[in-house]
């Protein structure tokens, strides 16, 4: 039964991916990519990787969909028509995909009891048997991430921090907020922004004397 569900979910993933490629409507593409993340999360749940599924749902379906929607307000909703699909690109993609699939042939099968992670005496066996006595939390994933490998997680947090600092220093947070306040100006309402500044109701924006992009 598990295999049947997994096969269904994976074929959903393929269908959604094809849909994202085929569709010209960017909004539909963004929503489909959110759906892709949800289906992937469901597949992870079936494989008993609940924490990974949670992350996939929160990050892939939640925050990146929202950021894509925000990015869509910069642009139009239709993808520009390309002239033709080039043959070298197709060859390149096929070769790369083939190499990736070839690379997975060496990996242990899903749920294999003889994979190195299962048989290594210092990894899964030890975590399952001793983490309750050594660390405590019933969720072994938490004790591995936060305690056994706390140093790695510190590095990950620093990476997130560095990414945030990079974006802040490139784009900057403006200290002074303009006095304009209008809920109809929200980045979410895409259709209205064209007439939002056309009918001139955006008053007294602070004068931008060339240094406006820096704080």
């Amino acid at each position, binding site marked *: 039964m598990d295999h049947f569900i997994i096969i269904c979910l994976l074929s959903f993933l393929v269908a959604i991916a094809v849909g994202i490629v085929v569709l010209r409507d960017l909004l539909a593409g963004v929503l489909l990519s959110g759906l892709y993340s949800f289906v992937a999360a469901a597949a992870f749940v079936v494989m008993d990787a*609940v*924490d990974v*599924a*949670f*992350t996939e749902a*929160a*990050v892939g379906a*939640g*925050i990146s969909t*929202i*950021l894509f*929607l*925000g*990015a869509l*307000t*910069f642009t139009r909703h239709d993808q520009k028509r390309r002239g033709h699909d080039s043959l070298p690109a197709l060859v390149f993609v096929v070769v790369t995909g083939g190499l990736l699939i070839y690379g997975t042939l060496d990996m242990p099968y899903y749920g294999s009891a003889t994979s190195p992670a299962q048989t290594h005496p210092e990894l899964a066996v030890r975590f399952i048997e001793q983490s309750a006595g*050594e*660390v*405590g*939390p*019933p*969720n072994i*994933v*938490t*004790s591995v991430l*936060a*305690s056994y490998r*706390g*140093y790695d*997680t*510190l590095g*990950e*947090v620093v990476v*997130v*921090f560095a990414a*945030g*600092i990079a*974006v*802040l220093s*490139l*784009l*900057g*947070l*403006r*200290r002074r*907020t303009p006095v*304009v*306040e*209008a*809920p*109809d*100006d*929200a*980045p*979410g309402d895409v259709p209205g922004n064209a007439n939002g*500044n056309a009918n001139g109701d955006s008053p007294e*924006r602070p004068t*931008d004397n060339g240094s*406006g*992009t820096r704080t």
Partner: protein
Amino acid sequence: MKIYPRQRHRVLQVIAKLLVPFVLMFALYVQFHGDFGPGGGFQAGVIFAAAIILHGLIFGLQRTRRVVTPGAVRVLVSGGVLIYAGTGVLCMLMGGNLLDYDVLAHDPLHGQHWGIFFVELGVGVTVTGVMISLFYCFASRRTDDARR
């Protein structure tokens, strides 16, 4: 509260006002219940930021910036890393290795509990700050460009 001349999206605003507190609450649950169920700082931070971003999408950036000011976001971004690293340094000060939580309390298990609590809190705080600041940066660019 001011009444705006053209209040579009009234339904969205009412629904968002209902949703945001529950999303924030759920983020806190994910944060502090991560030891016992799925979840943890990273997911909680993303969910918390998603609630703030939802508020920003529906009510406009200016009002969200008044609730969560850019200065506060900057404090969040760096504060989480400080909490995390500070927990590690505290372990060293109390006689252990870096991030060795056993020494944080008399009982090693309690020490581990405290250590994981603060470390996850640091992760959540930083992720929240980074996600919100990403949204602020991109969204404020858009409003500036649109008026230029």
